[in-house]
């Protein structure tokens, strides 16, 4: 591969690199610069140093958003992974074993197909769907039933202490299927002899799960945690569409992405919004580094 290598390499790389630098790298680099200005889009930006960051420290909405990311960061992965692990275990190992072949419970193919489906839908569409499900009167899916039975309707999205959890529930609803499939793939690669040996030793299903499946699935779990963590730092589409007036009631469900969007495209505070973007970037980075460090553990060879 000698003749004419460089013209070919340059020809193939030029368009992708040009596009990528223009729309991705260049904006990222600029974000750090704009965050040091008080730019409002009309006049030339003025350099204000770390003023925007200092103002962030006193911004209640910012801290509320950070706090919500904290809740999301714990609840979303924990709940999703717990449910998905249980289902993946049932679908792959839960049934009886015949001829040394581990089997899932009856109908496991059907369940896997159904569970995964929400993953195909856009989050914005799901958010509209659950707006209907959560509606506070008899036209809502849940409250329609409750009110038929003469109960008070639950104000899922209006009660400040319930709203965030209603949103987390929708995120879990969408995510579980994906992780069932992901964990199933991991479980399928665990050799059947290990289960067999453990069962001969008299291990119960519960022991099998905690002593065999879980340790051998560690790497996949780590990936799942990072993925869900990154999702917990975004959550824009669901909050923007599902919550009461974009992060409400009264900021009870707001997230950083929502605040960035509001500051930039409603208030035209471009410098301040960029400072929030930089803060979000460092939060994400810290999370990723921490997860990789804390969960580092000898992976089991088999």
């Amino acid at each position, binding site marked *: 591969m000698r003749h*004419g*290598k460089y013209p*070919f*390499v340059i020809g*193939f*790389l030029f368009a*992708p*690199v040009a*596009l*990528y630098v223009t*729309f*991705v790298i*260049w*904006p*990222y680099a600029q974000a750090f610069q*704009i965050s040091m200005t008080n730019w409002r889009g009309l006049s030339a930006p003025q350099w204000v140093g770390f003023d925007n960051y200092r103002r962030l420290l006193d911004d209640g909405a910012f801290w509320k958003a950070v706090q919500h990311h904290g809740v999301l960061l714990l609840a979303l992965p924990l709940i999703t992974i717990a449910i998905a692990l249980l*289902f993946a275990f049932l679908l792959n190992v*839960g049934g*009886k074993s015949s001829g040394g072949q581990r089997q899932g*419970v*009856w*109908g496991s193919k059907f*369940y896997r197909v*159904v*569970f*995964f489906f929400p*993953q*195909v839908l*856009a989050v*914005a*569409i799901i*958010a*509209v*769907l659950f707006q*209907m499900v959560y509606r506070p009167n008899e*036209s809502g*899916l849940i409250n329609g*039933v409750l009110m*038929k039975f003469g109960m008070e309707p639950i104000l899922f999205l209006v009660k400040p202490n319930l709203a965030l959890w209603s949103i987390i529930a929708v995120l879990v609803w969408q995510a*579980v299927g*994906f992780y069932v499939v*992901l964990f199933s793939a*991991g479980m399928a690669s665990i050799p059947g002899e290990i289960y067999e*040996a453990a069962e001969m*030793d008299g291990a*119960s299903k519960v*022991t099998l799960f905690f002593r065999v499946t879980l340790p051998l699935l560690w790497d996949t779990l780590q*990936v*799942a945690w990072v993925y869900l963590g990154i999702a917990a730092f975004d959550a*824009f589409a669901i909050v*923007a*569409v599902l919550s009461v007036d974009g992060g409400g009631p009264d900021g009870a469900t707001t997230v*950083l*992405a929502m605040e*960035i*969007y509001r500051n930039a495209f409603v208030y035209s505070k471009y410098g301040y919004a960029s400072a929030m*973007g930089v803060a*979000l*970037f460092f939060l*994400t980075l810290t999370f990723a580094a921490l997860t990789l460090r804390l969960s580092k553990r000898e992976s089991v060879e088999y």
Partner: protein
Amino acid sequence: MNPQSTLPPTPAALPPKTGDPSAPAGRGRKGPRSEVRLFAGLGHVALAVWAVIVIVPILWTFLAAFKNTSEIFSSPWTLPAELRWENFGRAWTKANVGRYFLNSVLVVSCSTFGTMLLGSMAAYVLARYKFWGNRAIYYLFVSGLAFPVFLALVPLFFVVKNLGLLDTHTGVVLVYIAYSLPFTVFFLAAFFKTLPSSVAEAGMIDGCGHTRLFFQVMMPMAKPGLISVAIFNIIGQWAQYQLPLVLLSNAKDKWVLTQGIADISVNAGYEADWSGLFAALTIAILPMIIVYAVFQRQIQAGLTSGAVK
């Protein structure tokens, strides 16, 4: 053979202590069996409940799409009294769902095609050619995986605006391609590395140029990887909400489906056209069910391909 298996059974397998020493020894044999049955039984209930939780909201939406507003309020749980197809007509034309849908199809076809073409070109060159700066460019692409899009949102808006591409489909398509490149290049570069070089060398000896070699030999060989990434990109770009929201805000006739449906849901309250909103939701969900039913295996593989490298 596991040496432990010759040892006596661990306490877990012993028959449960019933407190009755005269209980027949045969019960001990039944222990694990009934445990399996109980476990499978409870498991079944859990699985079935989750299946219901997934299916019911979607099914309920489909049913409500055929009702009128008073039915939606008075009997949310019953079948519609009659099939009101006009709800769909109203959603498709009056609420512009038809236009949003076609916009989405147009944007996603262009951007996925562009992503696959540019992404595979870059990945191929980076994976199989040695040249100065190769690693630097590769890491430039891969570093994009670590950045949240929201960091770039403000500058991106102005880059697109200064290029005169604000409120145009061209702008959205180019931005989609650019933001899909990190994963596409990362995944495909790994894939192109695994392809045998003997075929490529044979092609070169036969006088095949670099470009022809790529399009006629390497691309067909990389088909499984290309399909996975294409599915990943189609579903990701179809679901995009924040980028079109920022880039197309002032051109309502150019909006994509996610944006349009979210907007209809805001206005449905004012216009009291709930059945139209349910019909619009159905129009957005039903095609995905059909596509998913046909390509279920490929979609599951494609979407999880990012995690199981």
